[in-house]
């Protein structure tokens, strides 16, 4: 298997505001979101990061996408370092998260061309790719409708399409089915499988066990910013269901008090 992503000892600490301290019920001024996290992903696989809310999944993906910088450690994506070669990394990945929004004012048509241009995609390729993807997700009928007037599901599909305008080798999705209706969620997961079959590598974060079981080739369980266990589903589950295994690990980590 060809290793395409390697995270080594990633660390990220945030300073908590007073408001955040109150919400977290802590007097600590700093919070370690990711604590020396290491894992690898291989070409043509779907790798799932599984963990409860606040475990550090989103922070890890944001470091991989170079939106934030690790305090320690590094990650190499297709030969490029997130610390020293952030622009090159961004040209190799497609990143989708609910925090990334599209300008309401523009149409899907305009946005696809705009982001293709920023990714340096040639005009003819852009045209062909746009036609194919718009048709695949049913956006072609709404290509000239402003984003503001699209349904939530259509906006999500458009965000997915926009994140892939440059046909990246590595696709990083944070909670890809969150907030989607069942039909749109199914469209997205089917497409992720298609992408894997095309040889793309997909890293996704989720807390939905069924999604991991259905989609992922390998999984890493993160608790309190640390990678507790990582491997194929069989290796991680150890003969149990993923859900049972997860709670077993969780209890071990939290000392059985949760």
């Amino acid at each position, binding site marked *: 298997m060809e290793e395409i992503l390697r995270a080594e000892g990633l660390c990220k600490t945030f300073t908590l*505001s007073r408001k955040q301290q109150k919400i977290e019920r802590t007097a600590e001024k700093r919070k370690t979101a990711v604590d020396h996290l290491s894992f690898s992903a291989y070409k043509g696989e779907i790798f799932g990061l599984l963990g409860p809310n606040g475990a550090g999944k989103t922070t890890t993906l944001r470091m991989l*996408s*170079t*939106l*934030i*910088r690790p305090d320690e450690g590094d990650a190499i994506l297709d030969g490029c370092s997130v610390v020293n070669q952030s*622009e*090159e990394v*961004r*040209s190799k*990945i497609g*990143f989708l998260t609910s*925090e*990334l*929004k*599209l*300008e*309401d*004012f*523009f149409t899907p048509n*305009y946005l696809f061309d*705009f*982001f293709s*241009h*920023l*990714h*340096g995609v040639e005009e003819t390729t852009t045209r062909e790719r746009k036609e194919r993807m718009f048709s695949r997700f049913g956006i072609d009928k709404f290509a000239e409708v402003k984003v503001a007037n699209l349904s939530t599901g259509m906006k999500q599909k458009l965000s997915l399409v*926009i994140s892939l305008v440059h046909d990246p080798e590595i696709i990083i999705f944070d909670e890809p089915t969150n907030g989607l209706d069942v039909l749109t969620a199914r469209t997205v997961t089917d497409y992720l499988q298609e992408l894997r079959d095309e040889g793309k590598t997909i890293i996704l974060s989720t807390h939905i066990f069924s999604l991991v079981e259905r989609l992922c080739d390998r999984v890493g369980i993160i608790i309190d910013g640390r990678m507790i266990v990582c491997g194929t589903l069989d290796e991680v589950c150890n003969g149990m269901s993923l859900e049972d295994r997860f709670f077993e690990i969780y209890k071990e980590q939290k000392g059985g008090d949760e």
Partner: protein
Amino acid sequence: MKSNTLTIIKKEFARFFGDRQLVFTAVIMPGLLIYLIYSLMGTGINSMISDSENQQMTLQVENMPESMSTMLLAHNVPPMCKVVTGAFSDDDIKKLEDKELNTLLIRFPANFDQQVEDYYSLESESIPNIEIYYNSANMASNMVYDRLCDEIMSFERGYQINESGAEQPTKKYDVATDSIDSMIWSKILPMLIVMLLFSGVMAIAPSAIAGEKERGTIATLLVTPMRRNELALGKIVSLSCIALLSGTSSFIGIALSLPNMIQTEGAELGLDYTVNDYMALMFIIFATVLIMASAVSLLSALAKDVKNAGTMITPFMLVVMVAGLLPLMQDGATESLASYAIPFYNSIETFTAIFAHKLQWSAVLITVASNVVYTGVAVWGLTKMFNSEKVMFSK
């Protein structure tokens, strides 16, 4: 310019020009409103002046001196007045106080001409006193009073010069009038232009940067391989161009409404500027917009949302306003070339110099060059901010 910067500029233009409401609010409305308001003000003021001019006033002169009679009677000064001679009593003054009398009362000393002669030949230290009674609440009365004072002062000045054997300085007086017009423009217009340009920048910059942060669209741009400095440059250049349009609209509004605003009899605008002046003006306007867009962009990037950006920009706007008021407090533009490297102050000073017909190309060059350098620094700062997760993603 790099390709991604151009893409960002095109996107900002598409965003702006695609929104008819925004174009109307930021470009068409300022000029239109200024034109309508100034024109209405001008019409109102001129109507008041015209009413005052049509009002029949009487100027009653007690002890009309021979030296002044020519000026007051033959020259018919002030023109809207009927001049009568004769003594007036305290009762007449009381009537004037009670607004019952549409008259100006002027009392010369009985031997005014002799007193003047004695004073200027140093035979007497007693200064001849002229008493004028008028109603300050009445515009016509005020106008006649002002004209009268001007004429008396002119008489006095002429008398002094005649006494010293010098020629009557008619020409010099005319030249001074032109300078006063230019001086007035050089004091008012810099502030006006700076405020209009600033309002143009304010109309769009907070939404273009703080708004993108608030809406979450900036993060979508930040995950593309585009360099942060390309994004920063694209934002600043596009905002400057749009702000320039807004400023131009306001400027056209002012230019078109000025003739309506200043319709007073014999008023000369003193706006006879050369092609050189206009070129310098254009350079300075562009350099000023660049530095304003840069500063407002930096503050907007620091802000969490558009509302917060407005709060952060307000103190800065006050500083710009104070800088705009400087020409009112000083006598012409500074001659120190080093001062033209101080942002905002340099624009104000150069505008002042241009409108006062004292254009210095060296000052213009220093202003433009220093503002371009500061814009470069701002692009660097904005790039740092786009790179800073604390600035971009803090909640």
